[in-house]
């Protein structure tokens, strides 16, 4: 027995959903979806739960993470109820439900809060830099130090607890009975999905989209590795140097293509974007671009006289690490991979 809550769709709207109520439950979206199957019939189920406001059912669902938003459901929806957009919104909704700090929800729901957060961080970086008298060497040193510690703490303090919360919502609370060995056996699934996002391939239209994604993920991760662990800005090894250049070029060119796509609004995916999507791609682009320029300035020996360039890079980096990675769209990549993992666990569960 479940009590209907008609107000829930209003809440979902703040996460970007719209026209969900127009659904007349024909099931066309589920039928055209190339990723849905008998055990995971979506998106209509999610649409229905949303309309009825069955929050508990939504929170225990993994379906929103199984969708890669090819947009077929929305383009063929007879009622123009935008099921694809709803799935996207549900991912944002779930992200904020997983997040123990509550920041995700605030940032998703309010553009002004997001902007204020970005500005505050920028001011903080400049204030910090001024306390160091804009000394390039010190800045680079602390910058690198920040990178190292940020990655660790974000994972440890925010993302890890959130993943535990997600596990709690979808596995423990609904009493899915999973053996310990299943956790180990399915672990490979997690790794594969995390690095390849191979499920997108199931979407009929998106061979190129998947390829772009793959390149981006590889480029992004390796740039991270190059700057943080290989200390790209301080290295003398020409191999690392060129590697870093290549990676940043790849990141900003692929994100550039993404942005153009969003501006042209051609594909369904890009038709209705949420600010958080924009922050994600713009910052990714800026990261690649600014890292590239900083290294270029170092190589041209003009960074010392143009330390503002490094400050821009550092600001972008801090914003990325403090907002987008723990609370923004970046987490989707993590939750999605885990969702695949939990899904596998569910299928292995003893009922």
């Amino acid at each position, binding site marked *: *027995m*479940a*009590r*209907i809550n*008609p107000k829930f*769709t209003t809440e979902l709207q703040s996460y970007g959903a719209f*026209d969900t*109520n*127009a*659904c*007349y*439950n024909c099931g066309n979206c589920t039928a055209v979806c190339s990723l849905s199957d008998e055990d995971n019939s979506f998106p209509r*189920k999610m649409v*229905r*739960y949303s*309309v*009825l406001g*069955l929050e508990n059912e939504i929170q225990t669902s993994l379906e929103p993470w199984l969708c890669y938003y090819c947009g077929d459901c929305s383009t063929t929806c007879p*009622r123009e109820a935008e099921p694809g957009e709803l799935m996207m919104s549900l991912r944002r909704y779930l992200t904020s439900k997983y997040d123990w700090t509550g920041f995700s929800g605030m940032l998703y729901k309010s553009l002004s809060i997001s902007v204020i957060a970005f500005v505050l961080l920028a001011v903080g970086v400049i204030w910090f830099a001024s306390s160091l008298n804009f000394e390039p060497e010190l800045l680079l040193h602390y910058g690198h130090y920040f990178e190292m510690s940020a990655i660790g703490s974000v994972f440890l303090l925010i993302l890890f607890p959130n993943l535990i919360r997600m596990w709690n919502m979808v596995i423990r609370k609904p009493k899915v009975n999973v053996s310990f060995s299943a956790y180990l056996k399915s672990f490979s699934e997690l790794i594969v999905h995390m690095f390849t996002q191979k499920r997108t391939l199931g979407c009929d239209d998106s061979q190129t989209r998947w390829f772009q994604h793959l390149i981006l993920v590889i480029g992004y991760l390796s740039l991270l590795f190059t700057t943080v662990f290989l200390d790209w800005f301080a290295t003398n090894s020409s191999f690392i140097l060129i590697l870093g250049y290549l990676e940043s070029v790849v990141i900003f060119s692929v994100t550039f293509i993404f942005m153009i796509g969003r501006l042209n609004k051609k594909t369904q995916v890009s038709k209705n974007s949420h600010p958080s999507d924009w922050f994600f791609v713009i910052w990714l682009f800026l990261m690649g671009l600014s890292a590239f320029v900083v290294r270029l300035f170092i190589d041209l020996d003009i960074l010392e006289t143009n330390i503002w360039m490094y400050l821009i890079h550092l600001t972008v980096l801090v914003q990325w690490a403090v907002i987008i990675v723990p609370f923004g769209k970046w987490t989707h990549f993590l939750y999605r991979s885990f969702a695949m993992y939990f899904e596998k666990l569910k299928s292995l569960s003893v009922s």
Partner: protein
Amino acid sequence: MKKKIGVYVCHCGGNISDYVDVEKVRAEIEKDESVFLSKTTMFACADSNQKDMVTDIAEKQLDGAVVASCSPTLHLLTFSAVAERAGLNKYNYIHANIREQASWAHSDDKVGATKKAIQIVKAAVAKVKRSNALEPFRVAATNAVAVVGAGIAGLRSAIQLAESGAQVYLIEREFFVGGRVAQWDDLFVSNETGKELITRLYDRAMNHKNITLFTGAEIIENSGSVGNISLKVRISPRHMKLDCNEGNLGRAIEVCPVVVPDKFNFNITTRKAIYHNFPGEYPQLPVIDMEHCTRCGECEKVCENVDFSQKDEFLNIKVGSVLLATGFDPYEPKDDEFGYKTIDNVVTLPQFKRLVHYCDDKLVYKGKEVKNIAYIYCVGSRQVDGENKYCSRYCCTATIHAAITAKKKYKDLYNFHFNRGIRTYGKQEVLYDESSRLGDIYLQSFEDHPPVVSKEGDKTIVTINDILTADKTLEVEADLVVLVTGMVPRQDNSIGSLLKIPRGRDNFFNEIHMKLRPVETVIDGVTIAGASQGPKNIMESMNSSLAAATKSFSLIAAGELALSPTIAKIDVDNCLWCGKCDDACPFNALTKTDVDGKQIAVVNGSVCKGCGMCMPVCPSNAIELIGYTDDQIESMIDALVSTD
């Protein structure tokens, strides 16, 4: 006896020839020496074959014709017309039904079907041999139509008939016109209210000199037949003189001590024994409800227009045709059907609409503000256990429209539609779309597993197993439960039984042919319009009332009618006038007359309907029905039992 009969056996494109060996039928019938020509044809009704028949009959001077094809209800008229075009009197044409009654009925037995078809055609030939040319009775048709019921359908057809040039008697049983639509506010598709629509039609009708309106009026007697129908109308008094002084009237209503539930508002409000339906209704004159009036005389003291001396009046009118637009009744749920009358916040859709009419900025029922409304569809329609198997057609759209109206009128209102499959057909679909977008929630139950309304403490809970959520059990706490009651036929069928209008499976008036003749009835001269024929929305009622007006008018337009000559005939030699036939005739068509000093019966041709009820009671077998004479029937019997 005829000698040159033409017989046509139809394949009906296989419908007949797949089971009946039509060639054999033809060959068998050819053996009859009176059969001059016999043919088979793919489609007897096709234009080319009709042409051929005309040529055959005319050129070969046939004196009788038989077509063996489908049911005479389909094509008897077609082929009698063919006969007439060829110059053969249509009563020398006989139709043999070898499809419905042979090929289709016995598609399991081709030999039997063929044999039966042969006998049927032989009987038809036997009958046509003994048929005579007949000419129709021509009677003058009165250029007047009685329209029964002054709801939208009645008003509209009255206007149409008057504008076409007929005299119209508009007879309304209630004291106010407008029927059900007067009880509704905003109407779907237009921006007007029910009252405004009625006002528009009423003004148009009252401004036409050809229309006479009677309110509080009922037809109590009926005689005659199409073209010349005599009706006796009883007009109940309003007990109110015309030309009222508004102020005094208002006071009269004020002082009346009697308070009764107001039927116009489906009993959600009360009224006095002297009452209006609503301010500005038509005719704009209150009425005293004598059923509840205590005759205390208070009203008389303050208003000089009250007149208790008025009595029933009786009026005889003559019309050429009658148009029935008697409408429907809303289904009245049984006690405890979805909590009706047992749970205090359960109302019907008509009551809900009146409630919305009376509540301005807050929807309040029984002192409690309403935020969540549960609509339960198909109450009294599509019944699994009950009698009403039909769909009431209008209610899905009406409910959604009412829900949208309420949602827009009141803040923070939530609508929950517990339905069995929404049927917003045609353009009404956009309303369904609109309501969904406004946030209305639709829940669908299995047909045999309706939602349950129950009381939990002081809360009313509606529970459903929702098809749309994979049969999950869901519940809503409702402040108001609206039972979407369908249309049922008028409980009081007095006019129907008076005019002998047959009713269909659903008990609504039955049309003569569901597809192509939807406003005509088996009773010549009587047409049916609006929801009296079956559930309809306003536009459909309008279409049907206009169509019915056209059919009624075309009967009388020419000023003359041709009536069927197949009536009773008295054998003057044998009749001894015992009066039994007169007793048996329901139409008073037989009277005593004196012929050469002998008392015999005589038939009034324009009144006799040719039923034959007088025949079996005649002790001297002195009555025959033209077209069904002893000779014809007995020879048909002989043909049916004959063995080759």
